[in-house]
């Protein structure tokens, strides 16, 4: 917002992408230089030693709940949570009340995001009116609005009608948009409560079979190939889905796919005990699925990690499993989980993390100014990670208005300690604030 008037920052001796050590001079909203010698007088100095600098993180899949469910989250609280988690931009899903299916609603979300100013809020437009799956929404109006919508999704619901999906895939070519599909065959998942498997059989909970996801993905990659459109698949959760995406990419189909942190770490065993904090859609799967998702993310079959941050108020989780809402918050834990599941296991480098949590989501979302290189002249959207700042997740400590995290009590190896949006610190860990000093280096 006010990037040009933000104070300059000098981050000294920081590891860019975990590779090379440099200084980052953030001034005038851009990365002014990679040399401390160029820092302007009066710059706030931050000791970056031991920290990893990444291009600011971008979440392609967030639920901010406003308008309509401000008891669960608002654009302000969600933006704060995102900034704390290292994000500089989030895509806000369309399943609000009213639905984000008109230019008016997406402009409202967009402008509220600008007012808050902590992250860039990119509204996702609904593919169909009211997410009802029967009539295309006025996607061009949303694309041409001030919100410049490029990602369209009925997330929460699947665009199930194959003809409607075909039309949507074709139509978004008009403005370079992408349809992000929530792949869930509604008939195969009627009343579904958790992954269909041995655990659901034992717990007596209605199953959500993997084939309900995989059959829609198979159909949609074929459709995208047929009409020459790009398609994005939300929240991959099964080993079979990874195989289908791999096959589609080998055929040259323009498909991208995302995985959620919780699907990289948790399995359906978590449902034992019937604690609804582990109830999510798509559901937590088996260890074999977790392993396949990690492998798919490591080899590039899965393009990005997104959070599916889904806040719910206490009363929608402090109840019977069958009565509980699906979803879990995740903006503040995403980076730590990716480090735990992928970096510390050797499956990804920090440079890969920059790709899956910033560069590629920004490219899929067509987010100008995001996911750019850490280089002089680029926008000063930067996340500083402390990979050695182990912390224990306390859901009550989140900036989100809701605390429905499944990760309470889990220790994560690292976290974002600073987030800069066009040079302005939107999140600065207390430790960095205390040790930062003013003035040019000696």
């Amino acid at each position, binding site marked *: 917002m006010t990037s040009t008037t933000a104070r300059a920052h000098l981050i000294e001796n920081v590891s860019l992408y975990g590779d090379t050590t440099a200084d980052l001079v953030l001034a005038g909203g851009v990365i002014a230089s990679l040399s401390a010698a160029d820092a302007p007088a009066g710059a706030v100095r931050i000791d970056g030693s031991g920290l990893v600098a990444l291009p600011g993180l971008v979440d392609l899949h967030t639920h901010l709940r406003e308008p309509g469910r401000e008891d669960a989250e608002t654009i302000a609280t969600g933006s704060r949570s995102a900034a704390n988690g290292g994000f500089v931009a989030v895509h806000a899903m369309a399943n609000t009340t009213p639905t984000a299916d008109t230019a008016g609603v997406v402009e409202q979300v967009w402008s509220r995001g600008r007012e808050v100013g902590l992250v860039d809020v990119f509204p996702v437009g609904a593919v169909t009116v009211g997410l009802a799956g029967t009539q295309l929404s006025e996607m061009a109006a949303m694309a041409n609005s001030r919100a410049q919508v490029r990602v369209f999704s009925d997330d929460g619901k699947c665009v199930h009608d194959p003809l409607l999906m075909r039309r949507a895939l074709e139509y978004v070519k008009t403005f370079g948009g992408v349809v992000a599909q929530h792949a869930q065959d509604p*008939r195969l998942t*009627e009343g579904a*409560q958790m992954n*269909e*498997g*041995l655990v*659901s*059989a*034992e*717990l*007596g*909970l*209605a*199953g959500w079979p993997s084939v309900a996801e995989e059959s829609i993905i198979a159909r949609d990659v074929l459709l995208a190939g047929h009409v020459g459109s790009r398609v994005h698949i939300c929240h991959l959760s099964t080993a079979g889905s990874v195989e289908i995406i791999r096959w589609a990419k080998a055929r040259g189909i323009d498909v991208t796919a995302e995985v959620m942190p919780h699907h990289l770490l948790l399995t359906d065993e978590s449902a034992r*005990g*019937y604690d609804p904090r582990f109830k999510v859609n798509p559901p937590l799967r088996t260890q074999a699925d977790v392993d396949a998702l990690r492998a798919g993310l490591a080899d590039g079959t899965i393009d990005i990690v997104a959070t599916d941050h889904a806040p719910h108020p206490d*009363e929608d989780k*402090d*109840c*019977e*499993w*069958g*009565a509980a809402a699906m979803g879990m918050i995740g903006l503040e834990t995403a980076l730590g989980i990716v480090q735990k599941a992928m970096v510390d296991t050797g499956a990804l480098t920090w440079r890969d993390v920059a790709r899956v949590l910033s560069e590629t989501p920004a490219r899929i979302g067509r987010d100008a100014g995001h996911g750019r290189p850490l280089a002089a002249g680029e926008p000063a959207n930067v996340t500083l990670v402390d990979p050695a700042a182990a912390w224990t997740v306390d859901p009550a400590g989140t900036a989100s208005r809701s605390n429905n995290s499944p990760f309470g009590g889990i220790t994560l190896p690292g976290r974002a300690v600073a987030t800069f949006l066009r040079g302005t610190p939107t999140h600065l860990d207390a430790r960095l604030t205390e040790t930062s000093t003013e003035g040019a280096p000696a």
Partner: protein
Amino acid sequence: MRHLLDTDTLTRDEAIRILDASAQMAATQEREMRKLPTLRGKTVVNLFFEDSTRTRISFEAAAKRLSADVINFSAKGSSLSKGESLKDTALTLQAMGADAVVIRHWASGAASRLAGSGWMHGHVINAGDGTHQHPTQALLDAFTMRRHLVDDSAGKALDGVTVAIVGDILHSRVAGSNIPLLRTLGAKVVVVAPPTLLPYGMTDRDDLDVHYTLDDAIEAHDIDAVMMLRVQRERMTGGGSGFFPSPEEYTRLFGLDGDRLRRMPDHAIVLHPGPMNRGLEISAEAADSPRSVIVEQVSNGVAVRMAALYLLLAGEEAPQ
């Protein structure tokens, strides 16, 4: 034992102890004065989120014959109209000083949630949770089978007994509790169902046998007890999602009639948790045959529930 939530977590010794206590309770019910003073001053709440007159009055009779005070709390609701939340109901019961709560609920896991949530401190007995479990039904079935099929049954399990469970295994909390309990007690379990009504992975289990028709099961095993499950009407149709094509076809493949009963060993007994669909899963001839123990299951149900209440509520003061 603090709660009775499922049969998976019951040890063999615990299960036998409940069956033995049930036998003692059953003996007291032969007397002229059937009421025992054991639970005087204790309050048992029957918390029913689903209609089930039979189960409720069975628990009510059990608690009253132990001299407990009984409160019936019908909090009928469904997944569509939630009504008062389970949490608020539990807080209310806690405030009223319920010593034990017998809960029937449409949601799988509701009893477990009630016991583990910290919302209340009383003992919890699961009287049926969704499509998960109904442990006292399985215990009364085991008690009935032990009486008929095991000599000098006190202290004994069901080792060597072959039990066929026939019908909607997928949605049946009766099957859900019976299968683990029967395995714990050493019985051989034979499951008979159309593939559409089997839980995921059941055909891969090596600790039970699965058959797709009742005739196959009768042919393959010397069945000592056959347990017919009730067919829920809503499973038959539903816009292409019926689990089987028609009631007639179900009866042809899975119904127990006199002919099939005669092809089982002479000592084989017939169980049904009730209420029966006569002419669908069981013929009148089979239901009313001398080998049917269906009415006896009902009276045994009271004894088993007395035992469960006794072991939970009296056990806390005089641990054994």
